């Protein structure tokens, strides 16, 4: 139990360092970003008049709108794939692996790749997916295909494959936690009440792991929306999502346009999190 009372002076002093940090690195930059996105004129100066022109220009462009749509579709695909795969992995780890030694070994096998950075892991996919890559050589060796498949690298499929491998554990982790917290007696009680295994899963296990599923989906959603590195390395120059557009505008010194896309990206993320919170109240977890 905390011995510090709510609204005491000590409480405020203790909150101060974190508050200063958050204001400095999160609140102020976001405010600046929003401000810049409304700058009119041509000069990069704080004197610029505020207009909606930047947004109007963005929404007038069909290519950009299609990019927003494809980003959303791509993210939804990723969420579905990692959600199903992650749930299966979590269920297998918690429910099917009974030996503690095996469980630890498998858990480490899933976790150790996360010790390297996301960028390195994304780049590591290139030699796998290429025309002479590991996957193509394996397929040809197995006789599954005569000529190498070019669709892997620099393609949408390749991006999806890489991102599924990068983010599945984000979807699985919270589910593992929730599955572990379900008392075995609950499933047994349902069975003695004449529920066959699949009904036990549908009516008892899945509803109780739903908060974990939602948290996992939020993590995947936020990561995929903001992941420009994987798209850039695996997709080459042919494919881009909203986050790549920010980079593109920034590199061509179109700061206002970059700010507009960044703000829109943030709004999409915010909307996603709000929807998730409506499904499950994450704040009540652990209660």
């Amino acid at each position, binding site marked *: 139990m905390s011995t510090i009372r709510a609204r005491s002076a000590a409480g405020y002093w203790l909150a101060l360092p974190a508050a200063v940090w958050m204001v400095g690195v999160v609140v102020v930059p976001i405010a600046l970003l929003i401000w810049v996105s409304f700058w009119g004129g041509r000069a990069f100066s704080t004197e610029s008049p505020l207009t909606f022109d930047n947004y109007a220009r963005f929404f007038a462009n069909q290519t950009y709108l299609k990019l927003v749509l494809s980003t959303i579709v791509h993210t939804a695909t990723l969420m579905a794939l990692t959600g199903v795969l992650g749930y299966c992995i979590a269920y297998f780890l918690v429910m099917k692996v009974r030996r503690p030694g095996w469980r630890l070994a498998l858990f480490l096998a899933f976790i150790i790749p996360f010790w390297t950075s996301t960028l390195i892991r994304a780049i590591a996919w290139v030699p796998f997916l290429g025309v002479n890559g590991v996957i193509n050589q394996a397929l040809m060796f197995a006789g599954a295909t005569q000529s190498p498949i070019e669709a892997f690298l620099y393609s949408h499929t390749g991006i999806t494959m890489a991102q599924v491998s990068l983010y599945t554990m984000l979807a699985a982790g919270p589910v593992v936690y929730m599955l572990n917290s379900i008392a075995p*007696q609950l499933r047994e*009680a349902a069975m003695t009440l004449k529920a066959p295994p699949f009904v036990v899963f549908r009516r008892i296990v899945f509803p109780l792991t739903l908060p974990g599923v939602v948290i996992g989906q939020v993590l995947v959603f936020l990561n995929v929306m903001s992941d420009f590195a994987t798209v850039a390395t695996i997709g080459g120059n042919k494919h881009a999502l909203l986050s790549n557009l920010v980079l593109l505008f920034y590199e061509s010194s179109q700061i206002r346009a970059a700010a507009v896309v960044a703000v829109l990206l943030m709004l999409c993320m915010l909307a996603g999190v709000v929807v998730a919170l409506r499904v499950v109240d994450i704040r009540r977890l652990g209660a």
Partner: protein
Amino acid sequence: MIVDALATPPPAGAGAAPGPARPQLDLELRSIRKRYGSFVAVDDVSLRVGKGQFVCLLGPSGCGKTTTLRCIAGLEEPDGGDILIGGKEATKDPPWKRDIAMMFQDFALFPHMTVAKQVGFGLEMLHRPKAEIAQRVQHILTSFEIAALADRKPASLSGGQRQRVALARAMITEPRILLLDEPIGALDYSLRETVMLELKLLQQRTGISFIWVTHDQNEAFSLGDLVVVMNHARIEQQGVPEDILLRPATAFVAGFVQGNNVFRGRTGDVLAETLAIKTAAGTFLAPRERTAPPLPTGSEISFSVRAEQITDRLTDRHVNRLTATCTAVEYFGAVRRHVFERSGGEVLKYDQFGAQAARIAPGQRVTLGWTIDAVVVHRSAGA
């Protein structure tokens, strides 16, 4: 040893089978065995439960009583033996195909369902129409006096309320057998006696067989039509409460049941009606078992004497005598218990009616005695 549970008459309203046909058993266990690695959890357990009986599995923790219950539920598969539910072979059936319901020690309520929803869960699994489910849930909630809680979730219920919800959830499908794993162990002590009585009445009214697992002998003896005492994965003794209280079959049962003084010794001379047993505290006379073959002289043997069968007012009939020093006197109202020190650190308990005046004070040296008939000779250990 198997005591046929059918020997006791079924409670009124259970509906005796017409004609000479053998009444069907609700449950029969035939030599159930279960082991986990090298640990034997259940060893050669056989049990027959007649229609609408209240059976208590009694024993210390780790004796195999819960594992036996889980085998009956189908939550564990026995390594050997047969389980018959309502006369039908059910050993290989999964839990959801058995005509049973179970109440768990911590009640195992579904945290995400309202009281009404989880009480109706069993009927939903039987694919009953919605209207019938709603009506039967309402009915059982009312009769269990928890109708006001219908829309609450388990987290907001008290221990007693959860117990009622768990019971309603298990009872609503009217199973042949209700399995209860320490069902009142999680309740406040003051609540237990009321709940015990309610459950006993409920069992008699519905005619559902109850298999009640407990380590509390008060529960077992006050509730059970049949009490099964288990130890080290085996059944030590089964019978009606009087049988187990007055005629413990083994030294373990005698020691486990309150109020017994257990003596261990070796057989001595066999007389016409009596058997002499030599113990560290002296030689005592016991009634000779006419049915059992006589043991060779010098065999290990144990016997017990109930604390209330001992007296300090000796007559010629009290041929078994022992002189010891009183170390403590405990007054329980109904009885006054005197604790005496025996050789080898063991104690001797002597209960006097509480209504009588106190005669013995701590520190006093007293000669106590008991009759030959008060001596209950046990089966030899391991037999």
